[in-house]
């Protein structure tokens, strides 16, 4: 059975409408009006044990709200969440034993005392057997490189160090599900790489289910086998990363290195090219086309007839572009569910 089941999950908040200026503020004092804001709007999905799922969406899409309902902190307005067959908010503490959570924006470490003390606290909190604790500490400190700052007070750590320690603390008790809310935010490439390797390692060794939100597309490409995209609280896409690319990334970019500029004023739209630019300093032409409508070979042939082409490359759309397109589509025309 699926480890996470989400069915028609909805969360609405009512928030005060603030008037502008002093008069508006005074009016608000006397008569406060509220508006309903639907943060999560009838979202359904299931996640199997051992999957790594990217939960993506623009800022304010409802990602964090969904995660907080999955974790059991927020109570859904309607719909149902089941994690390992239990309703998280009704069994917050039992649910908490089985999960690990990292909020990239908030540290869960004990501020004034060394990192090692927080780990010791986790050992008591989750009743981690001494053998497991020792083995995990060895593995984690090794992969994440924590030993260098093990005995430093948390408030003196750098962001990257703190993040690694947070991740370690969240996974010490071998949780079967890990929720990561922007785990690589603000980190440098080296630390990001370490964290990704670590997550893949944990996933491979223990079949840990991982649900992560991120704005970093390389996180998605390196980690996730599947992505769920939401926008304005609604689900826009749910499927393999590969399917996302093949279904939505029809746009490709071709770069041609040429001898001299050719009449770019000439109409080549009949070839299916949507836009093109010439970069005189590198002597290259960059053009974009929809591969469902254009044949790259005939575009290339067209150019080779007119100029000497030294080299060319074809770049498939980046995940980032694909996702941006989906966000924009959904805001402009309310694209239906893509399943």
């Amino acid at each position: 059975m699926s480890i996470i089941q989400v069915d028609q999950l909805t969360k609405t908040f009512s928030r005060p409408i603030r008037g502008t200026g002093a008069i508006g503020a005074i009016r608000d004092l006397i008569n406060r009006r509220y508006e309903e804001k639907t943060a999560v709007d009838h979202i359904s999905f299931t996640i199997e044990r051992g999957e790594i799922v990217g939960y993506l969406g623009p800022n304010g899409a409802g990602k964090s709200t969904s995660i907080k309902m999955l974790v059991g902190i927020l109570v859904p307005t309607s719909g149902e969440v089941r994690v390992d067959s239990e309703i998280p908010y009704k069994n917050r503490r039992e649910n908490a034993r089985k999960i690990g959570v990292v909020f990239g924006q908030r540290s869960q470490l004990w501020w004034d005392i060394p990192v090692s003390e927080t780990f010791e606290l986790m050992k008591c909190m989750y009743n981690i057997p001494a053998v497991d604790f020792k083995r995990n500490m060895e593995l984690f400190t090794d992969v994440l490189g924590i030993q260098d700052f093990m005995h430093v007070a948390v408030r003196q750590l750098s962001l990257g160090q703190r993040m690694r320690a947070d991740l370690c603390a969240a996974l010490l008790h071998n949780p079967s599900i890990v929720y990561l809310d922007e785990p690589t935010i603000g980190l440098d490439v080296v630390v990001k790489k370490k964290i990704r390797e670590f997550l893949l390692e944990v996933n491979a060794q223990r079949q840990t289910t991982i649900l992560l939100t991120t704005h970093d597309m390389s996180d998605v490409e390196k980690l996730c086998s599947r992505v769920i995209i939401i926008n304005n609280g609604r689900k826009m896409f749910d499927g393999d990363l590969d399917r996302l690319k093949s279904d939505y990334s029809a746009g490709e970019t071709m770069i041609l290195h040429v001898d001299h500029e050719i009449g770019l004023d000439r109409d080549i739209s009949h070839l299916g090219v949507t836009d093109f630019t010439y970069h005189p300093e590198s002597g290259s032409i960059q053009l974009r086309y929809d591969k469902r409508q254009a044949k790259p070979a005939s575009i290339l042939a067209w150019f080779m007839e007119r100029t000497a082409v030294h080299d060319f490359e074809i770049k498939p759309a980046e995940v980032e572009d694909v996702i941006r397109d989906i966000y924009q589509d959904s805001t402009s025309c309310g694209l239906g569910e893509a399943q």
Partner: protein
Amino acid sequence: MNVYYKLMLNAVQSSTVYRFHTFVTTFQRLIGIFVQISLWTALYKGAQSFQMEITQASLQEMWMYVVYSSLIGLMVANGNIYSLSDKIQTGHIVTALIRPIGLFRSLLFETLGSKVFMILFEIIPVLIVSHFVLGLPLPNIEAIPVFMIMLIMAFTTFFLMTFIVGMSSFWYIRTFHLEFMLTHVMNFFSGLMIPLWFFPRELRAVMDWLPFDLVYYAPLSVLLGKAKYAEIGVMLAKGCVWIALLAAAAVMIWHLGKRKLVIQGG
């Protein structure tokens, strides 16, 4: 090791970090005591010059009242309101709620942990100064057991009151005004500033029904040997009833608050 015990040890360790803070507060505490002692002395001397006699307590008893009320203040104090409203305001409460432990209990044990340090570095110095500098007698040994019970009751009552006020942040994001109110009500009605035996009869009658005097007046009157057996019995019964009521209110507000929770700052 039990997780709550470990939380307590961590709190002890955390409180050792800010040593300078401890010295400053102890010093501040002593100044406060001297100010109050001077005030009461002036009052008593003034009354004497008018041939008036204050029958409720002797000047030395008042001095002791001042010292011990400030010590009780140290022992019952907690950071509940600040800590809860800050956690709720910043949304940091999520980090507490994703743990498989109770919020109330973790706050309780953290507070107890900070007390260990406080007894060593704040209470003992004040006792030394009061005994050797002010020449005040140490409290009667026989009063200690009942005093300890009263002190636990005082701590629990105040802990629950602050927990409830702190929890109200679920509804009113800012609670500093409620904290102000609680502080002022406590200062006046609990016997912290002025012992209840100086209060007019009508006011006493009202306060007999309220929980505030449980926090300062009850343990102090036992410590100073002012309370008779019957009065101690009444105070104990009242304490139990109020603790039960406040605990029920705290549980209720916790369950309502959880549904109301909005995580600030995403």
